[in-house]
Protein backbone atom coordinates (compact mmCIF):
# COMPACT_ATOMS: atom_id res chain seq x y z
CA UNK A 1 0.00 0.00 0.00
CA UNK A 2 2.87 2.39 0.71
CA UNK A 3 3.85 2.46 -2.96
CA UNK A 4 0.47 3.79 -4.02
CA UNK A 5 0.01 7.48 -4.72
CA UNK A 6 -2.61 9.53 -2.89
CA UNK A 7 -4.77 9.45 -6.03
CA UNK A 8 -4.58 5.64 -5.98
CA UNK A 9 -5.17 5.47 -2.22
CA UNK A 10 -8.35 7.54 -2.60
CA UNK A 11 -9.61 5.08 -5.24
CA UNK A 12 -8.71 2.10 -3.06
CA UNK A 13 -10.46 3.60 -0.03
CA UNK A 14 -13.57 4.52 -1.97
CA UNK A 15 -13.83 1.12 -3.64
CA UNK A 16 -13.25 -0.52 -0.20
CA UNK A 17 -10.18 -2.35 -1.45
CA UNK A 18 -8.69 -1.51 1.95
CA UNK A 19 -9.92 0.47 4.93
CA UNK A 20 -8.42 3.63 6.36
CA UNK A 21 -7.70 1.77 9.60
CA UNK A 22 -5.68 -0.85 7.67
CA UNK A 23 -3.89 1.86 5.72
CA UNK A 24 -3.18 3.94 8.82
CA UNK A 25 -1.90 0.92 10.75
CA UNK A 26 0.32 0.03 7.81
CA UNK A 27 1.97 3.47 7.78
CA UNK A 28 2.25 3.52 11.58
CA UNK A 29 4.05 0.17 11.40
CA UNK A 30 6.39 1.54 8.76
CA UNK A 31 7.13 4.60 10.89
CA UNK A 32 7.79 2.28 13.83
CA UNK A 33 10.23 0.09 11.96
CA UNK A 34 11.91 2.50 9.52
CA UNK A 35 11.83 5.92 11.16
CA UNK A 36 14.63 5.22 13.68
CA UNK A 37 17.01 5.07 10.71
CA UNK A 38 15.83 8.41 9.26
CA UNK A 39 14.63 10.46 12.25
CA UNK A 40 12.08 12.08 9.92
CA UNK A 41 9.11 11.85 12.27
CA UNK A 42 9.49 13.30 15.79
CA UNK A 43 5.97 12.81 17.14
CA UNK A 44 3.70 9.87 16.32
CA UNK A 45 0.02 10.28 17.14
CA UNK A 46 -0.95 6.62 16.73
CA UNK A 47 -4.01 6.53 18.97
CA UNK A 48 -5.52 9.68 17.51
CA UNK A 49 -4.70 8.52 13.97
CA UNK A 50 -6.48 5.19 14.39
CA UNK A 51 -9.46 6.94 15.90
CA UNK A 52 -9.79 9.35 12.98
CA UNK A 53 -9.20 6.45 10.56
CA UNK A 54 -12.14 4.60 12.09
CA UNK A 55 -14.26 7.73 11.73
CA UNK A 56 -13.13 8.05 8.12
CA UNK A 57 -14.13 4.44 7.45
CA UNK A 58 -17.58 5.14 8.84
CA UNK A 59 -17.95 8.12 6.53
CA UNK A 60 -16.63 6.15 3.56
CA UNK A 61 -19.18 3.41 4.29
CA UNK A 62 -22.02 5.92 4.12
CA UNK A 63 -20.65 7.50 0.94
CA UNK A 64 -20.35 11.22 0.25
CA UNK A 65 -17.01 11.33 2.08
CA UNK A 66 -14.82 14.46 1.72
CA UNK A 67 -11.88 14.57 -0.72
CA UNK A 68 -9.07 13.15 1.40
CA UNK A 69 -11.22 10.98 3.65
CA UNK A 70 -9.07 8.32 5.28
CA UNK A 71 -5.77 9.36 3.63
CA UNK A 72 -2.86 9.39 6.12
CA UNK A 73 -0.56 12.41 6.11
CA UNK A 74 2.14 14.00 8.27
CA UNK A 75 2.35 17.63 9.38
CA UNK A 76 5.58 19.56 9.58
CA UNK A 77 6.13 20.37 13.25
CA UNK A 78 5.71 24.09 12.50
CA UNK A 79 1.91 23.83 12.22
CA UNK A 80 0.09 24.12 15.55
CA UNK A 81 -1.86 20.99 16.41
CA UNK A 82 -4.38 21.14 19.22
CA UNK A 83 -3.19 18.99 22.12
CA UNK A 84 -0.11 17.71 20.26
CA UNK A 85 3.36 19.15 20.86
CA UNK A 86 4.47 21.66 18.22
CA UNK A 87 8.21 22.10 18.72
CA UNK A 88 9.31 23.85 15.51
CA UNK A 89 12.47 21.75 15.91
CA UNK A 90 13.52 23.82 18.93
CA UNK A 91 14.28 23.24 22.59
CA UNK A 92 12.42 26.54 23.08
CA UNK A 93 9.13 24.84 22.17
CA UNK A 94 9.97 21.29 23.27
CA UNK A 95 7.24 21.57 25.94
CA UNK A 96 4.75 23.59 23.85
CA UNK A 97 1.34 21.97 23.40
CA UNK A 98 -0.84 24.40 21.46
CA UNK A 99 -4.45 24.82 22.55
CA UNK A 100 -5.58 25.29 18.93
CA UNK A 101 -5.14 24.05 15.36
CA UNK A 102 -3.48 25.97 12.53
CA UNK A 103 -5.89 26.76 9.68
CA UNK A 104 -3.97 24.30 7.47
CA UNK A 105 -4.41 21.56 10.08
CA UNK A 106 -8.09 22.43 10.35
CA UNK A 107 -8.47 22.25 6.54
CA UNK A 108 -7.03 18.72 6.46
CA UNK A 109 -9.27 17.70 9.33
CA UNK A 110 -12.30 18.99 7.40
CA UNK A 111 -11.16 17.02 4.35
CA UNK A 112 -11.06 13.82 6.41
CA UNK A 113 -7.28 13.26 6.31
CA UNK A 114 -5.70 11.14 9.04
CA UNK A 115 -2.70 12.72 10.83
CA UNK A 116 0.03 10.17 11.60
CA UNK A 117 2.28 12.62 13.43
CA UNK A 118 4.68 15.53 13.08
CA UNK A 119 7.88 15.78 11.09
CA UNK A 120 11.37 16.92 12.03
CA UNK A 121 12.71 20.20 10.68
CA UNK A 122 15.51 22.73 11.00
CA UNK A 123 15.03 24.80 14.15
CA UNK A 124 12.41 27.49 13.45
CA UNK A 125 12.80 26.52 9.76
CA UNK A 126 16.26 28.14 9.67
CA UNK A 127 18.48 25.82 7.73
CA UNK A 128 19.00 24.01 4.46
CA UNK A 129 20.19 20.67 5.83
CA UNK A 130 18.05 19.74 8.85
CA UNK A 131 21.20 19.78 10.96
CA UNK A 132 19.91 22.60 13.19
CA UNK A 133 17.02 20.56 14.66
CA UNK A 134 17.02 20.12 18.45
CA UNK A 135 15.92 16.53 17.75
CA UNK A 136 18.97 15.67 15.67
CA UNK A 137 19.42 15.61 11.90
CA UNK A 138 17.17 13.76 9.46
CA UNK A 139 18.96 11.28 7.20
CA UNK A 140 18.42 11.29 3.46
CA UNK A 141 16.79 7.96 2.50
CA UNK A 142 18.86 7.95 -0.71
CA UNK A 143 22.19 8.31 1.07
CA UNK A 144 22.18 7.98 4.87
CA UNK A 145 25.45 9.91 5.19
CA UNK A 146 23.88 12.90 3.42
CA UNK A 147 21.46 15.64 4.43
CA UNK A 148 17.83 15.56 3.27
CA UNK A 149 17.82 19.33 2.74
CA UNK A 150 15.87 21.75 4.83
CA UNK A 151 14.06 23.10 6.47
CA UNK A 152 11.24 20.66 5.58
CA UNK A 153 13.72 17.76 5.54
CA UNK A 154 11.61 15.57 7.82
CA UNK A 155 8.55 15.86 5.58
CA UNK A 156 10.63 15.22 2.46
CA UNK A 157 12.48 12.21 3.88
CA UNK A 158 9.23 10.75 5.25
CA UNK A 159 7.56 10.94 1.84
CA UNK A 160 10.66 9.56 0.07
CA UNK A 161 10.87 6.66 2.54
CA UNK A 162 7.13 6.04 2.11
CA UNK A 163 6.37 6.65 5.77
CA UNK A 164 3.42 8.71 4.53
CA UNK A 165 2.06 9.38 1.05
CA UNK A 166 2.09 13.15 1.60
CA UNK A 167 3.08 15.80 4.10
CA UNK A 168 2.70 19.49 4.78
CA UNK A 169 5.72 21.77 4.62
CA UNK A 170 6.69 25.44 4.56
CA UNK A 171 9.01 27.48 2.36
CA UNK A 172 10.61 30.79 3.32
CA UNK A 173 13.65 30.63 1.02
CA UNK A 174 13.44 27.17 -0.52
CA UNK A 175 12.40 24.98 2.40
CA UNK A 176 9.88 22.98 0.35
CA UNK A 177 11.68 22.87 -2.99
CA UNK A 178 15.25 22.15 -1.88
CA UNK A 179 14.46 19.14 0.36
CA UNK A 180 11.99 17.88 -2.28
CA UNK A 181 14.84 18.01 -4.81
CA UNK A 182 17.38 16.35 -2.51
CA UNK A 183 14.95 13.56 -1.54
CA UNK A 184 13.57 12.93 -5.04
CA UNK A 185 9.95 13.94 -4.44
CA UNK A 186 7.54 16.66 -5.61
CA UNK A 187 6.70 19.79 -3.65
CA UNK A 188 5.06 23.12 -4.37
CA UNK A 189 5.38 26.49 -2.65
CA UNK A 190 2.26 28.40 -3.66
CA UNK A 191 1.95 32.13 -4.29
CA UNK A 192 2.43 34.22 -1.14
CA UNK A 193 -1.04 34.59 0.38
CA UNK A 194 -2.54 31.42 -1.15
CA UNK A 195 -2.23 29.29 2.01
CA UNK A 196 -3.11 30.63 5.45
CA UNK A 197 -0.19 31.26 7.80
CA UNK A 198 -2.42 31.28 10.87
CA UNK A 199 -1.08 28.83 13.43
CA UNK A 200 2.11 28.32 11.43
CA UNK A 201 5.04 29.39 13.64
CA UNK A 202 6.35 32.59 12.05
CA UNK A 203 9.91 32.83 10.72
CA UNK A 204 9.94 35.67 8.16
CA UNK A 205 6.37 36.79 7.74
CA UNK A 206 6.67 38.48 4.35
CA UNK A 207 8.24 35.33 2.85
CA UNK A 208 6.75 32.31 4.69
CA UNK A 209 4.31 30.15 2.77
CA UNK A 210 2.95 26.67 3.42
CA UNK A 211 2.61 24.03 0.74
CA UNK A 212 2.36 20.27 0.18
CA UNK A 213 4.89 17.55 -0.54
CA UNK A 214 4.10 14.20 -2.17
CA UNK A 215 5.61 11.85 -4.70
CA UNK A 216 3.70 13.16 -7.72
CA UNK A 217 2.40 16.46 -9.04
CA UNK A 218 -1.10 14.97 -9.13
CA UNK A 219 -0.89 14.26 -5.39
CA UNK A 220 0.41 17.78 -4.75
CA UNK A 221 -2.67 19.06 -6.61
CA UNK A 222 -4.96 16.96 -4.40
CA UNK A 223 -3.28 18.23 -1.24
CA UNK A 224 -3.15 21.86 -2.39
CA UNK A 225 -6.90 21.74 -3.11
CA UNK A 226 -7.36 21.24 0.61
CA UNK A 227 -4.47 23.34 1.92
CA UNK A 228 -5.20 26.55 0.00
CA UNK A 229 -7.98 28.71 1.39
CA UNK A 230 -8.80 32.29 2.20
CA UNK A 231 -8.49 32.95 5.90
CA UNK A 232 -9.64 36.07 7.73
CA UNK A 233 -7.22 35.24 10.52
CA UNK A 234 -4.17 35.76 8.27
CA UNK A 235 -4.12 39.42 7.27
CA UNK A 236 -1.81 38.73 4.31
CA UNK A 237 -3.97 35.95 2.89
CA UNK A 238 -5.40 36.81 -0.53
CA UNK A 239 -9.15 36.55 -1.04
CA UNK A 240 -9.28 34.66 -4.30
CA UNK A 241 -11.13 31.55 -5.34
CA UNK A 242 -9.19 28.28 -5.08
CA UNK A 243 -9.49 26.38 -8.36
CA UNK A 244 -9.67 22.58 -8.51
CA UNK A 245 -5.99 21.94 -9.26
CA UNK A 246 -6.70 18.39 -10.43
CA UNK A 247 -9.14 19.54 -13.13
CA UNK A 248 -6.44 20.96 -15.42
CA UNK A 249 -3.70 18.34 -15.02
CA UNK A 250 -4.37 16.71 -18.36
CA UNK A 251 -3.91 19.73 -20.63
CA UNK A 252 -1.20 19.49 -23.27
CA UNK A 253 2.03 21.48 -22.98
CA UNK A 254 1.95 22.25 -26.72
CA UNK A 255 2.75 25.90 -27.35
CA UNK A 256 3.76 26.54 -23.76
CA UNK A 257 6.63 29.05 -23.54
CA UNK A 258 9.22 28.02 -20.97
CA UNK A 259 11.76 30.64 -19.94
CA UNK A 260 15.23 29.30 -19.17
CA UNK A 261 17.19 31.89 -17.16
CA UNK A 262 20.83 31.94 -18.20
CA UNK A 263 21.81 33.00 -14.66
CA UNK A 264 20.52 29.65 -13.33
CA UNK A 265 23.02 27.72 -15.44
CA UNK A 266 26.13 29.63 -14.55
CA UNK A 267 29.29 28.84 -12.65
CA UNK A 268 28.79 26.73 -9.53
CA UNK A 269 26.13 24.45 -11.00
CA UNK A 270 26.97 20.75 -10.71
CA UNK A 271 27.49 19.19 -14.17
CA UNK A 272 25.28 16.18 -13.38
CA UNK A 273 22.45 18.46 -12.30
CA UNK A 274 22.75 20.59 -15.41
CA UNK A 275 22.62 17.49 -17.60
CA UNK A 276 19.46 16.15 -15.90
CA UNK A 277 17.71 19.53 -15.99
CA UNK A 278 18.57 20.10 -19.67
CA UNK A 279 17.24 16.62 -20.47
CA UNK A 280 13.97 17.45 -18.69
CA UNK A 281 13.67 20.67 -20.67
CA UNK A 282 14.32 18.72 -23.89
CA UNK A 283 11.57 16.28 -22.93
CA UNK A 284 9.07 19.12 -22.56
CA UNK A 285 10.29 20.64 -25.81
CA UNK A 286 9.66 17.29 -27.52
CA UNK A 287 6.12 17.42 -26.11
CA UNK A 288 5.58 20.72 -27.91
CA UNK A 289 6.74 23.36 -25.44
CA UNK A 290 8.98 26.17 -26.65
CA UNK A 291 12.20 26.96 -24.76
CA UNK A 292 13.09 30.64 -24.56
CA UNK A 293 16.37 31.87 -23.12
CA UNK A 294 15.71 34.67 -20.66
CA UNK A 295 17.70 36.76 -18.24
CA UNK A 296 16.97 37.57 -14.61
CA UNK A 297 19.83 40.07 -14.22
CA UNK A 298 19.41 40.67 -10.48
CA UNK A 299 19.49 36.96 -9.54
CA UNK A 300 22.86 37.33 -7.86
CA UNK A 301 21.38 39.79 -5.38
CA UNK A 302 18.66 37.49 -4.13
CA UNK A 303 20.76 35.66 -1.51
CA UNK A 304 22.18 38.89 0.00
CA UNK A 305 18.71 40.54 0.05
CA UNK A 306 17.17 37.42 1.56
CA UNK A 307 19.78 37.21 4.33
CA UNK A 308 18.89 40.73 5.41
CA UNK A 309 15.10 40.49 5.16
CA UNK A 310 14.64 36.99 6.61
CA UNK A 311 16.82 37.49 9.72
CA UNK A 312 15.37 40.98 10.29
CA UNK A 313 11.82 39.65 10.30
CA UNK A 314 12.90 36.61 12.31
CA UNK A 315 14.49 38.77 15.00
CA UNK A 316 11.17 40.58 15.40
CA UNK A 317 9.02 37.42 15.26
CA UNK A 318 11.18 35.47 17.69
CA UNK A 319 11.14 38.21 20.30
CA UNK A 320 7.91 36.62 21.57
CA UNK A 321 9.90 33.70 22.97
CA UNK A 322 10.95 35.17 26.27
CA UNK A 323 10.13 32.47 28.83
CA UNK A 324 7.08 34.33 30.19
CA UNK A 325 3.93 32.75 28.86
CA UNK A 326 4.91 29.48 27.15
CA UNK A 327 7.93 27.57 25.97
CA UNK A 328 11.29 27.19 27.68
CA UNK A 329 12.21 29.14 30.83
CA UNK A 330 15.70 28.93 32.35
CA UNK A 331 16.22 27.61 35.89
CA UNK A 332 16.32 30.11 38.76
CA UNK A 333 16.30 33.43 36.90
CA UNK A 334 17.78 36.10 39.12
CA UNK A 335 15.74 38.91 37.57
CA UNK A 336 13.54 39.60 34.54
CA UNK A 337 16.43 40.47 32.19
CA UNK A 338 18.26 37.34 33.25
CA UNK A 339 15.13 35.27 32.58
CA UNK A 340 14.79 36.72 29.08
CA UNK A 341 18.40 36.41 28.02
CA UNK A 342 19.17 33.04 29.56
CA UNK A 343 15.88 31.46 28.43
CA UNK A 344 16.69 32.65 24.90
CA UNK A 345 20.35 31.63 24.86
CA UNK A 346 19.60 28.22 26.37
CA UNK A 347 16.38 27.66 24.37
CA UNK A 348 17.59 28.72 20.90
CA UNK A 349 20.28 26.85 18.97
CA UNK A 350 23.32 28.55 17.46
CA UNK A 351 21.98 29.21 13.96
CA UNK A 352 18.78 30.75 15.32
CA UNK A 353 20.78 32.99 17.68
CA UNK A 354 23.05 33.99 14.81
CA UNK A 355 20.09 35.01 12.66
CA UNK A 356 18.47 36.94 15.50
CA UNK A 357 21.73 38.84 16.00
CA UNK A 358 22.09 39.57 12.26
CA UNK A 359 18.49 40.71 12.11
CA UNK A 360 18.91 42.89 15.18
CA UNK A 361 22.00 44.43 13.60
CA UNK A 362 20.21 45.16 10.31
CA UNK A 363 17.28 46.77 12.10
CA UNK A 364 19.24 48.72 14.69
CA UNK A 365 19.49 52.50 14.74
CA UNK A 366 21.79 53.80 12.04
CA UNK A 367 21.71 50.60 9.97
CA UNK A 368 18.03 50.19 9.13
CA UNK A 369 18.06 52.16 5.87
CA UNK A 370 21.39 50.74 4.73
CA UNK A 371 20.28 47.15 5.25
CA UNK A 372 16.56 46.49 5.58
CA UNK A 373 15.46 49.49 3.50
CA UNK A 374 18.03 48.69 0.80
CA UNK A 375 17.11 45.00 0.74
CA UNK A 376 13.41 45.84 0.31
CA UNK A 377 14.34 48.01 -2.69
CA UNK A 378 16.49 45.24 -4.18
CA UNK A 379 13.53 42.95 -3.63
CA UNK A 380 11.53 45.22 -5.92
CA UNK A 381 14.25 44.94 -8.59
CA UNK A 382 14.07 41.15 -8.35
CA UNK A 383 10.29 41.25 -8.73
CA UNK A 384 10.65 43.50 -11.79
CA UNK A 385 13.02 40.95 -13.38
CA UNK A 386 10.30 38.31 -13.09
CA UNK A 387 7.55 40.68 -14.27
CA UNK A 388 9.54 41.39 -17.41
CA UNK A 389 10.23 37.70 -17.99
CA UNK A 390 6.57 36.76 -17.68
CA UNK A 391 5.71 39.21 -20.46
CA UNK A 392 7.21 36.72 -22.91
CA UNK A 393 7.02 33.32 -21.20
CA UNK A 394 4.40 31.26 -19.33
CA UNK A 395 6.70 29.48 -16.88
CA UNK A 396 10.35 29.62 -15.87
CA UNK A 397 12.42 26.48 -15.32
CA UNK A 398 15.86 25.58 -14.08
CA UNK A 399 17.61 23.60 -11.38
CA UNK A 400 16.24 23.67 -7.82
CA UNK A 401 19.68 23.45 -6.19
CA UNK A 402 23.26 23.88 -7.35
CA UNK A 403 24.40 20.42 -6.16
CA UNK A 404 22.98 17.06 -5.05
CA UNK A 405 22.57 16.15 -1.35
CA UNK A 406 25.80 16.88 0.53
CA UNK A 407 27.38 15.08 3.48
CA UNK A 408 26.57 15.93 7.09
CA UNK A 409 28.91 18.59 8.41
CA UNK A 410 30.03 19.71 4.95
CA UNK A 411 28.54 23.17 5.28
CA UNK A 412 27.39 23.40 8.88
CA UNK A 413 30.47 25.34 10.00
CA UNK A 414 30.21 27.95 7.28
CA UNK A 415 26.92 29.87 7.27
CA UNK A 416 27.65 31.56 3.94
CA UNK A 417 28.26 28.25 2.13
CA UNK A 418 25.00 26.94 3.57
CA UNK A 419 23.12 30.09 2.50
CA UNK A 420 24.31 29.67 -1.09
CA UNK A 421 22.41 26.38 -1.16
CA UNK A 422 19.32 28.61 -1.64
CA UNK A 423 20.73 30.47 -4.62
CA UNK A 424 18.02 29.38 -7.11
CA UNK A 425 15.10 29.30 -4.70
CA UNK A 426 15.07 32.50 -2.63
CA UNK A 427 14.20 34.85 -5.50
CA UNK A 428 10.68 33.43 -5.83
CA UNK A 429 10.04 33.99 -2.10
CA UNK A 430 11.28 37.57 -2.38
CA UNK A 431 8.94 38.14 -5.34
CA UNK A 432 6.09 36.14 -3.73
CA UNK A 433 5.85 33.86 -6.78
CA UNK A 434 4.92 30.16 -6.69
CA UNK A 435 7.73 27.64 -7.14
CA UNK A 436 7.82 23.88 -7.45
CA UNK A 437 10.39 21.09 -7.55
CA UNK A 438 9.93 17.71 -9.21
CA UNK A 439 12.42 14.87 -9.64
CA UNK A 440 14.09 14.87 -13.07
CA UNK A 441 17.08 12.55 -12.86
CA UNK A 442 20.01 11.39 -10.79
CA UNK A 443 23.49 12.83 -10.27
CA UNK A 444 26.10 10.99 -8.24
CA UNK A 445 23.35 8.42 -7.43
CA UNK A 446 21.30 11.13 -5.75
CA UNK A 447 18.07 12.76 -6.94
CA UNK A 448 17.99 15.97 -8.98
CA UNK A 449 15.15 18.50 -8.83
CA UNK A 450 13.70 20.50 -11.71
CA UNK A 451 12.41 23.85 -10.50
CA UNK A 452 9.25 25.29 -12.05
CA UNK A 453 8.47 28.94 -11.31
CA UNK A 454 5.05 30.31 -12.24
CA UNK A 455 3.41 33.70 -12.40
CA UNK A 456 1.23 34.79 -9.45
CA UNK A 457 -1.58 32.28 -8.76
CA UNK A 458 -0.56 30.11 -11.71
CA UNK A 459 -0.19 26.95 -9.59
CA UNK A 460 -2.66 25.06 -11.82
CA UNK A 461 -0.44 25.52 -14.86
CA UNK A 462 2.70 24.49 -12.95
CA UNK A 463 1.01 21.33 -11.66
CA UNK A 464 -0.31 20.61 -15.16
CA UNK A 465 3.15 20.77 -16.74
CA UNK A 466 4.69 18.78 -13.90
CA UNK A 467 2.01 16.12 -14.35
CA UNK A 468 2.60 15.96 -18.11
CA UNK A 469 6.33 15.55 -17.48
CA UNK A 470 5.66 12.78 -14.95
CA UNK A 471 3.38 11.00 -17.44
CA UNK A 472 6.29 10.87 -19.88
CA UNK A 473 9.03 9.95 -17.38
CA UNK A 474 9.42 7.76 -14.30
CA UNK A 475 11.92 9.63 -12.11
CA UNK A 476 9.15 10.23 -9.55
CA UNK A 477 8.60 6.45 -9.30
CA UNK A 478 12.18 5.68 -8.26
CA UNK A 479 12.53 4.64 -4.64
CA UNK A 480 15.56 4.63 -2.36
CA UNK A 481 16.98 1.19 -1.65
CA UNK A 482 14.93 -0.87 0.77
CA UNK A 483 11.86 1.36 1.02
CA UNK A 484 9.58 0.14 -1.77
CA UNK A 485 9.46 -3.56 -0.79
Amino acid sequence: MHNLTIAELIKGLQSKEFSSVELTQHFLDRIGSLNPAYNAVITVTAEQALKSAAEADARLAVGNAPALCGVPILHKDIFCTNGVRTSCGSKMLDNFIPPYNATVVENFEQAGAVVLGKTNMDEFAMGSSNETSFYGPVKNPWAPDCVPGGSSGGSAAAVAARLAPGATATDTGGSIRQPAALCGISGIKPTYGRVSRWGMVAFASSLDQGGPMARTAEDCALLLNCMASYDDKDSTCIDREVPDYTATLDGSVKGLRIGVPKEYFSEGLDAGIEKAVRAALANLEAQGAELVEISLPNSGLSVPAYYVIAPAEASANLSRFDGSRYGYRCEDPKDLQDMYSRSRSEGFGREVQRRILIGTYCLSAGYYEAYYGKAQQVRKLIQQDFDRAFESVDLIMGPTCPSPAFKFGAKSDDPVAMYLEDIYTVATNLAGLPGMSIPCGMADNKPVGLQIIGNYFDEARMLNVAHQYQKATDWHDLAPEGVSS
Partner: protein
Amino acid sequence: MNIERQEIEKLATLARIAIDDSTISDVSQRLSSVLDLVDQLQAVNTEGVEAMSHPMQATQRLREDEVTEINQREAFQAIAPETEDGLFLVPKVIE
Protein backbone atom coordinates in the same frame (compact mmCIF):
# COMPACT_ATOMS: atom_id res chain seq x y z
CA MET B 1 34.18 43.66 7.73
CA ASN B 2 34.72 43.10 11.40
CA ILE B 3 32.27 43.57 14.19
CA GLU B 4 33.89 44.83 17.38
CA ARG B 5 33.42 43.03 20.64
CA GLN B 6 31.56 46.03 22.04
CA GLU B 7 29.08 45.93 19.19
CA ILE B 8 28.38 42.22 19.74
CA GLU B 9 27.69 42.95 23.39
CA LYS B 10 25.28 45.71 22.43
CA LEU B 11 23.49 43.43 19.95
CA ALA B 12 23.26 40.68 22.53
CA THR B 13 21.61 43.10 24.96
CA LEU B 14 19.19 44.38 22.33
CA ALA B 15 18.27 40.83 21.29
CA ARG B 16 18.15 39.59 24.91
CA ILE B 17 20.54 36.76 24.18
CA ALA B 18 23.25 35.98 26.68
CA ILE B 19 26.55 35.38 24.89
CA ASP B 20 29.27 33.59 26.74
CA ASP B 21 32.56 35.52 26.87
CA SER B 22 34.47 32.59 25.41
CA THR B 23 32.32 32.50 22.27
CA ILE B 24 32.31 36.22 21.42
CA SER B 25 35.15 36.05 18.90
CA ASP B 26 33.55 33.07 17.18
CA VAL B 27 30.17 34.83 17.01
CA SER B 28 31.86 37.97 15.72
CA GLN B 29 33.67 36.07 12.98
CA ARG B 30 30.51 34.33 11.74
CA LEU B 31 28.40 37.47 11.83
CA SER B 32 31.13 39.30 9.93
CA SER B 33 31.14 36.70 7.18
CA VAL B 34 27.36 37.02 6.79
CA LEU B 35 27.61 40.81 6.73
CA ASP B 36 30.28 40.55 4.02
CA LEU B 37 27.77 38.57 1.98
CA VAL B 38 24.92 41.02 2.44
CA ASP B 39 27.15 44.04 1.90
CA GLN B 40 26.97 43.28 -1.83
CA LEU B 41 23.69 45.17 -1.68
CA GLN B 42 25.48 48.45 -1.00
CA ALA B 43 26.85 48.53 -4.55
CA VAL B 44 23.39 48.40 -6.15
CA ASN B 45 21.86 51.58 -7.51
CA THR B 46 18.36 51.70 -6.04
CA GLU B 47 17.70 55.38 -6.54
CA GLY B 48 13.98 55.93 -6.98
CA VAL B 49 13.13 52.25 -6.44
CA GLU B 50 10.16 51.73 -4.20
CA ALA B 51 10.69 49.38 -1.24
CA MET B 52 8.59 46.23 -1.48
CA SER B 53 6.91 44.67 1.53
CA HIS B 54 4.06 42.65 0.01
CA PRO B 55 4.21 41.16 -3.50
CA MET B 56 0.59 42.01 -4.29
CA GLN B 57 0.69 45.49 -2.74
CA ALA B 58 -1.98 44.28 -0.34
CA THR B 59 -3.05 46.69 2.33
CA GLN B 60 -4.06 45.86 5.85
CA ARG B 61 -7.69 44.79 5.98
CA LEU B 62 -9.95 46.41 8.53
CA ARG B 63 -12.74 44.69 10.40
CA GLU B 64 -15.54 45.77 12.69
CA ASP B 65 -14.34 46.40 16.23
CA GLU B 66 -16.18 43.47 17.71
CA VAL B 67 -15.12 40.72 20.10
CA THR B 68 -14.51 37.60 18.01
CA GLU B 69 -12.40 35.49 20.36
CA ILE B 70 -13.69 33.74 23.43
CA ASN B 71 -11.74 33.93 26.67
CA GLN B 72 -9.39 30.92 26.89
CA ARG B 73 -7.28 32.00 29.84
CA GLU B 74 -7.19 28.54 31.38
CA ALA B 75 -6.07 26.86 28.17
CA PHE B 76 -3.33 29.45 27.64
CA GLN B 77 -2.15 29.35 31.23
CA ALA B 78 -2.05 25.57 31.33
CA ILE B 79 1.09 25.74 29.16
CA ALA B 80 2.75 28.65 30.98
CA PRO B 81 5.94 28.17 33.03
CA GLU B 82 4.43 29.75 36.16
CA THR B 83 1.04 31.25 36.97
CA GLU B 84 -0.90 32.39 40.02
CA ASP B 85 -4.52 33.55 40.33
CA GLY B 86 -4.88 33.84 36.57
CA LEU B 87 -1.66 35.85 36.18
CA PHE B 88 1.61 34.93 34.46
CA LEU B 89 4.42 35.00 37.01
CA VAL B 90 7.88 36.38 36.23
CA PRO B 91 10.77 37.28 38.57
CA LYS B 92 10.21 40.34 40.73
CA VAL B 93 10.61 43.57 38.76
CA ILE B 94 10.05 46.23 41.42
CA GLU B 95 11.81 46.00 44.77
